[in-house]
């Protein structure tokens, strides 16, 4: 990407921050009410204070580890289950209904389940993160696999490929763009459930800390948590998108979208005057 585009992107973020600062420092209250919102300055100074402390980085480390483990599990199992459901009638009939009923169960509602079911709190947290990311990956994979062009599979079948071969040579690579869409959504959903998951924690984690800050109504602290989670989420999802772009490099991608110069629709043709061009042999190349 060009330097100019990076600039635009940075400017966009800066403008958003500026708007926030403006709205909150002027206590604007036009339908939306910014009066009680912390200003950017307050959040930034709280952020600065936290950045220097060891617990901040400890929280960060814990959360990232939990999310990454949960997400990796979700990626592997989600792709596997999604593919199975899309490809096998038995899997669709046996797993499908269970998955569909389990899918909407709220992350926080899993807090007691995780506490009761799993031997340790860490496992409980990873379990909730996993669940959050698992279903988006599963559903996207299922959709992507179902939408595959059938002729690819047919080609491999006529070469004597079996189910496994079709799976690894056609289904997975062909569904990869859709699967990566699901992974990108999945990592996002894992983060949006990090507070719910870390409610179990009792000790560390960005989500845990944010909720603790909220219990003492420390809004700048809550915003520091939100910003931190936003940044971490951005990093992880950028990593996923980057991998995705590498893995689906075969997809046609417009270079930099060609600016359409000049006329698109030529106006009324000029009067038919130009003489028919010479039809004799012309040099071409």
């Amino acid at each position, binding site marked *: 990407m060009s330097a100019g585009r990076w600039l635009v992107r940075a400017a966009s973020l800066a403008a958003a921050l500026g708007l926030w600062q403006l709205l909150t420092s002027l206590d604007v209250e036009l339908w939306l*009410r910014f009066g*009680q919102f912390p200003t950017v300055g307050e959040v930034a100074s709280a952020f600065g204070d936290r950045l220097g402390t060891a617990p901040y980085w400890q929280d960060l480390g814990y959360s990232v580890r939990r999310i990454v483990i949960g997400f990796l599990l979700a990626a592997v199992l989600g792709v596997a289950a999604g593919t199975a459901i899309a490809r096998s009638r038995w899997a669709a009939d046996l797993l499908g209904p269970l998955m569909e009923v389990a899918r909407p169960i709220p992350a926080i509602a899993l*807090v*007691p389940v995780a*506490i*009761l079911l799993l*031997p*340790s*709190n*860490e*496992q409980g947290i990873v379990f909730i993160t996993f669940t959050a990311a698992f279903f988006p990956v599963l559903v996207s994979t299922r959709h992507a696999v179902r939408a595959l062009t059938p002729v690819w599979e047919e080609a491999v079948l006529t070469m004597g490929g079996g189910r496994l071969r079709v799976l690894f040579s056609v289904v997975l690579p062909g569904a990869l763009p859709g699967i990566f869409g699901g992974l990108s959504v999945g990592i996002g959903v894992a983060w949006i459930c990090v507070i719910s998951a870390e*409610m*179990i*924690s*009792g*000790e560390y984690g960005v989500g845990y800390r944010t*909720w*603790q*800050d*909220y*219990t*003492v*109504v*420390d809004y700048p*602290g809550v915003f520091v948590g939100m910003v931190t989670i936003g940044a971490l989420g951005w990093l992880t999802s950028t990593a996923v998108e980057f991998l995705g772009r590498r893995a689906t490099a075969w997809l046609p991608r417009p270079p930099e979208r060609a600016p359409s110069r000049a006329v698109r629709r030529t106006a009324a043709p000029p009067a038919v005057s130009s003489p028919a061009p010479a039809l004799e042999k012309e040099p071409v190349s």
Partner: protein
Amino acid sequence: GGTAGAEDSRTVTVTVGYQSKTINTVTAGTLLRSLGYFEEELAARGKKDGKTYKVKWQDYATGAPITAQMTAGKIDIGSMGDFPLLINAARGKQLGQPTRLVSVTGYNLRGGLNTVVTAPGSHLRSLADLRGRKVSTSVGSAADGTLVRALKKAGIDPEKGISKLNQQPSVGASALTGGSVDALSQFVAWPGQLAYEGKAKALYDGADLNLPTFHGVTVREKFAEKRGGVLDDFLQAQRRATDYLRKRPVAAAESVAEETGVPAEAVYLYNGAHGIATFDPALRPELIAALKKDVPILKAAKLVGDVDVDSFVDPEPLKRATHTPAYPKAGAAKSELWVKGQDSTRTFDSPKQLLKALKGAEVRAAYVPDTLTGTLWYADRAVWVADGSDLRAFVTPSHAKTYVERHTGARVVGYADAVRLAS
């Protein structure tokens, strides 16, 4: 892992659940942890029996997750308020992990730990004004109990007379700030903290009910039986932490503030020398009696079935563990002035004297007791009444009104006027 009591033959891990933000439990949580007394006691025990003892501290926002973890056998010792304790007792029994109340952390004999507050600019003057208004509280907490009882006393049907929103305390605080509720009934730390930050003012003082409230320590029965010694150590450590808090209340408050993010001034309001809470591990009979009176309220809200309080309360371990003499019962509160940079406060016999002393002092915080209930409050947030040459402080406008009605010539004055009058 948090597998409570998990051990190889050499190592014993004890998991303690606490609520750092519920500062009435600091002697079994935040303060105890930062003082390290429990670890000290266990180390001594370890020297004797050759085992290694480890403590896992887990800090939660409310009592519910602690109870949940206890029923799953993952937390051994937990601390929480009186209503959550009853839920803890009921669920523990129900789910085959019975628990026992073994000590109290802090108490207030009149119920001053719960307060109903409104937004600073609110026009509401008394509890009766709440009729038809939106009030946020947490169902299943002592604050809800206070609200229900107070409304009944004021002749308002707690079900239909107001529109009650059941929200987490922090959600309720946001709702009050955001203006989507008219009042907030909450327990320790929130009312004091919100008032301190200027986000709320007191509307109703729980002490009006004159029913004791407290926080206590609960332990899993299985743990208590298997590791009675460790429990003793805990109670011993709690007692030592209580001693410390009573001896050095300012240092304790500052340490707690540091750990929790609650302003030290708000911590001191509750945990100070004459704070709203009195710290004493003893299972006082009046507290147990009050606990019994709470059961019907929870039952009426269909939150628990019958709770057998007598079998829940177990004073034996505390008796076994502590050998120091009992503390006296909480006495009358006094005015306190906390000057910047000081590690102890000055005490005054009357609010007027405190106001006088304010002049020229670099005040960190000034506290005055309510004339009617004795509940401590910030001097600059209190409602002041000039009665002749005397100056009296009240937590809520309705207290002041009551007083003014009874005393001819008395009138409500602003804080600035009060300060001026005092000198």
